[in-house]
């Protein structure tokens, strides 16, 4: 017959867990995070590097996430959701580099573009929020607060994620590429090879606490100089440190291999 424990103090729980060899398996209910099963339901996945920037650990359906400063940051935000099967749409960005999007791992077949939505772009965004999981909207000018609120409410109601790119008021999470730089390019040699992107977060509610993360692009190595750690699993690349002088000069000496004449 099972023994019934009466737990009175937190130390009782700790003792019990330790005595039954359950350390690491039992957690208090307050530490519960959504199970991966729940990710597909309410939370769309994001790259591991960016996960810490979101209070929910991913793009919560119905939320508004403002992105600024870098198209690469925008693309890296869409990557995991798109490769997990979500549909994405980008409104008002005729210059978006789709080759880069494909290199990030975004499924181009599920990435719809509306390059020129015209003056009626809010209606387009609202229509897309009805059926598309992540809708990126790059408004052509300043957006009235009331309009931003209406579109955010539409996203909340339909369960889509609205990602404004540019000026916006009232976003739940604000991601900005605050610093960054390219490595791999010397004076007349090498090639652009690795992009460091420092992303800082602002926001409201649980996201009000400022945070920073570093994203490296591309995530898996395009060159393979010794010591750069390109064999690391993708999840660890986000924690790579910036190149120091010796490594950087090694990369910049690597041959360009691109000068082929057609």
């Amino acid at each position: 017959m099972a023994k019934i424990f009466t737990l009175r103090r937190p130390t009782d729980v700790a003792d019990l867990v330790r005595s039954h060899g359950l350390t690491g398996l039992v957690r208090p209910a307050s530490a519960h995070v959504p199970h991966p099963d729940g990710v597909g339901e309410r939370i769309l996945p994001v790259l591991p590097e960016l996960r810490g920037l979101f209070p929910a650990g991913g793009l919560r359906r119905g939320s508004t996430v403002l992105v600024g400063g870098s198209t690469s940051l925008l693309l890296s935000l869409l990557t995991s959701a798109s490769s997990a099967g979500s549909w994405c749409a980008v409104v008002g960005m005729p210059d978006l580099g789709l080759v880069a999007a494909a290199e990030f791992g975004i499924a181009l077949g599920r990435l719809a573009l509306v390059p020129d939505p015209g003056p009626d772009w809010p209606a387009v965004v609202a229509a897309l929020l009805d059926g598309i999981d992540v809708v990126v909207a790059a408004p052509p000018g300043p957006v009235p607060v009331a309009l931003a609120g209406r579109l955010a409410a539409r996203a909340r109601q339909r369960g889509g994620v609205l990602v404004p790119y540019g000026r916006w008021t009232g976003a739940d999470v604000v991601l900005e590429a605050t610093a960054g730089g390219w490595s791999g390019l010397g004076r007349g040699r090498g090639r652009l090879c690795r992009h460091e992107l420092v992303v800082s977060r602002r926001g409201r509610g649980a996201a009000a606490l400022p945070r920073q993360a570093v994203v490296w692009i591309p995530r898996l190595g395009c060159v393979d100089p010794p010591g750069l750690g390109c064999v690391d699993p993708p999840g660890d690349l986000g924690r790579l440190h910036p190149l120091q002088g010796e490594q950087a000069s090694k990369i910049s000496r690597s041959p360009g291999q691109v000068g082929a004449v057609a």
Partner: protein
Amino acid sequence: MSRTMLVWCPDWPVVAAGLVEGVSVHEPVAILAANRVVACSVAARAEGVRGGLRKREAQSRCPHLVVLEDDPARDARAFEPVVAAVEELAAGVEVIRPGSCALAARGPSRYFGSEAAAAERIVEHVAQSCLVEAQVGVAEGAFAAGLAARTGRLVKPGETPAFLAGIDIAALDRPELVDLLRRLGVGTLGAFAALPAADVLGRFGLDAVLAHRLAAGRDERPLAARRPPPDLDVGQTFDEPLERVDAAAFAARQLAERLHERLAGHGLACTRLGIAAVTEHGAELHRTWRHDGLLTAAGIADRVRWQLDGWLARTGRRPGAIVRLRLYPDGVVEYAGFQLGLWGDAGEERDRAHRALTRVQGMLGPDAVVTGALVGGRDPGDRIRLVPWGDERPDPATEPWPGRLPEPAPASVPREPLPVEVFDGAGAPVRLAARLGITGEPAGLSFVGPPAAAARPAQPPAVVEPSAVVEPSAVVEPITGWAGPWPVDERWWAPEEASPRVRFQVCLADGRALLLTLTSGLWSVTGVYE
């Protein structure tokens, strides 16, 4: 080997011409292909017209000969009712060519009592329903049955080789082989069948072996039965004739859903929709709607509603209330889009996305919503083809493209290249020198025109100004790193399309990186790494 029954209509091209063109088949009629007679009526044959004669020769033998051009499509079209008539009595009819069709003899002979009774019944039914004279032959295999049908013979089971043995070798319908065999002294199918198969293969080749098998009565190819096309039409008769548009729209929606369900059940979708209505005065109205994409249930309902609206609201000669409505898919294509994905993920979410995108297309036009597809090319802009939503996407290019820029690709690709100027350390513009050299090391860059938003420094979004602001162009931004020139000389064989150019990658002091292109002395930004 299965007993095969073959229904043969003699001189079918002539009969078909009589049915379709209305010529009298009892007069001398000849069908010509490439100025040679391919078929003629009995009356013409009596006058001496034979297959293979030239037109002039045939007319000289029979001056009042009616000559018609050969038209296989006409023959096939006219034969369709005959096949349908045979199908009413027996299942599994295979059309061999216009004028003859075959079926397994077992079913009808058991049903009608004997092969003779079945043959008689089929000939009678074809004659009654199509006014066409037919003959039936039964033997083992379609080849032997075809020969038996010429004489209307029912070959007894097991006697097929003996039946074939006495027939002239020309029945093989292989002129070159027949000619050769005749010169070798082989005049009948029986004599040909008596040759050893291995020697026939060695001497005459593979096709002759097939002919040899036919001649020996071993036609083992099973009949490929014609499957009648599925009946996709939906229709409804209304007890109370429809007079008002809203009532018609309600009926249209129900019919559209039924049609859509039926199509989906066959894995089909509809590209052309036929709408037919019968009014209370007995008038038949008919209209076909065409659609470039696939018609969904809502799309079908909309079109039916529009059409009924047009008919019912017609001013002047009012057609009257509608008593019967029929929808028939005129053009169908196979479409798996209605089927759920294997893992259940592709279904509902994709449908929702499709609806949303189709709706935006309805707002802005079909070309306003695009998806990108990777195709071959050397510059980032060339490697993407934008496909309007709903159109077929090209297959992804997997071939290597020498001269392609290395990864990572620029995250922004301006639609129109932004003109810039690049200066060396002394302030002189950098140009291309002989043998892919450059006149100086790039040290500074200035935007010639108003810089677009894409090329602007990375700044917090709250500070980004709208793109209408024109900045002074005199600012020279220092270049901290560069690589190049990487030449591309595409389409040099077509002078007006050729665009010899070199590409550079440069890093600016503020952390941005640009892809620059130098074409005949003009610098431009063709990609922004940001």
